[in-house]
């Protein structure tokens, strides 16, 4: 088919990319929020990966693929859900403003017990994660669902490791508060 990719590239693609398809799909699903859309995003990402396979240094195939999947998902979000791509700098500025003044953590209204968090069922947990703004959601999913370490997350999301830590902290805080609110509603 006068293909752009050589047999070599295809063999390399099969050994580098295909083993990480489940991770690619999981990230795409968490970012798009939809199974069919996630499949489209993964397919697009795989085509990009095949084109770029020659530039892959053979270091961390999973992080490399997830970087491409994230990029493809952002392109998709830009076309279909542009409102969800709030500029993260603005977002973090808003958070800082809210946090300053009162010494943030001690006086937060919702500070659930660990036992309450542990009682959250899958549906509530999934809904609470889906509500997180994209930069927080992707950081939390990469760490707590997909098990990447900070260094890998920094590579995939293209931010310093310190930012990975602060986003992860904010994402987890929001989740905890959300689960506490759910519990309050259910109890009342």
């Amino acid at each position, binding site marked *: 088919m006068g293909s752009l990719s050589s047999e070599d590239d295809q063999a390399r693609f099969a050994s580098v990319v*295909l083993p990480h398809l489940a991770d690619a799909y999981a990230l795409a699903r968490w970012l798009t929020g939809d199974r069919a859309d996630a499949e489209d995003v993964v397919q697009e990402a795989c085509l990009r990966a095949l084109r770029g396979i020659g530039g892959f240094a053979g270091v961390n195939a999973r992080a490399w693929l997830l970087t491409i999947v994230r990029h493809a998902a952002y392109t998709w979000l830009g076309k279909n859900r542009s409102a969800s791509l709030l500029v993260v700098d603005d977002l973090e500025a808003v958070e800082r403003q809210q946090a300053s003044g009162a010494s943030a953590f001690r006086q937060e209204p919702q500070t659930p017990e660990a036992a309450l968090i542990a009682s959250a069922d899958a549906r509530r947990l999934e809904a609470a994660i889906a509500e997180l703004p994209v930069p927080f959601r992707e950081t939390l999913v990469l760490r707590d669902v997909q098990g990447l370490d900070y260094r890998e997350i920094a590579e995939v999301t293209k931010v310093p490791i310190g930012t990975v830590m602060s986003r992860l902290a904010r994402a987890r805080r929001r989740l905890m508060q959300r689960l506490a609110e759910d519990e309050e509603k259910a109890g009342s």
Partner: protein
Amino acid sequence: MTTSTTDPRLLVHAYVDGELDPANALELERQLANDPALAAERERIEALRRTIAERLPREAAPAGLARRIEAAVGARPAPARIAAHPSWRALAASVMVAAFLGSGATWLALSPAPADADMVVANHVRALMAPHPVDVESSDGHTVKPWFSGRIPEAPRVVDLSNDGFALVGGRIDVIGRTPIPTLVYRVRQHLISVSALRAGRAAAMPNEQIAGYNLVSWTDNGVTYWAVSNVAAADLNAFVKAFRAAAPDGNT
């Protein structure tokens, strides 16, 4: 970043994730002991992580997805085992990338650690940089084990883990202090895992940790302390350790 990363409310996350270096981890443990609110936060973070892991397990990709991708790119399914030789240049590049990425944040688990851990990582890094990561190259335990027997008092336990996706690459002799240490090398996908066997008592086994971007697991079986080190993800390294400990020694099946 230096100002924000002294905030224990942030650092406690890195602590729970095992990403703090020992000095900062100790300092945070001191704060945890004196600050009940911080200790409660740590419990909440751990509860959240546990709950996510239990309730939202990693899913497999949909059945048709791999076929759809293969059709789209014209690729064939991956072989069960990687036959291709990994590129040593690429592996050496990975060492440098790890060193570069690791230099950014001082609170990370980069430096002081038990001396043996450092030496095990250093030996692994040196092997990745060398033309060959092993002194004897063979996927056959019956070749590798006798090679050790001729050189050191006790040959290590050699196991066949090819069914678990970990191919034996071979073995080498590392030196820690002045003691020769047998080390086996396995490959998973593009990555190498070094397993060193030390006489127990030399080093206390410890839970997973990370040094300079390398994951490290240590455990003790039958009086031998093993160290496994690799740049694969911690989960993959744990899977390897589990398979290694469960496997019957070669020639003993």
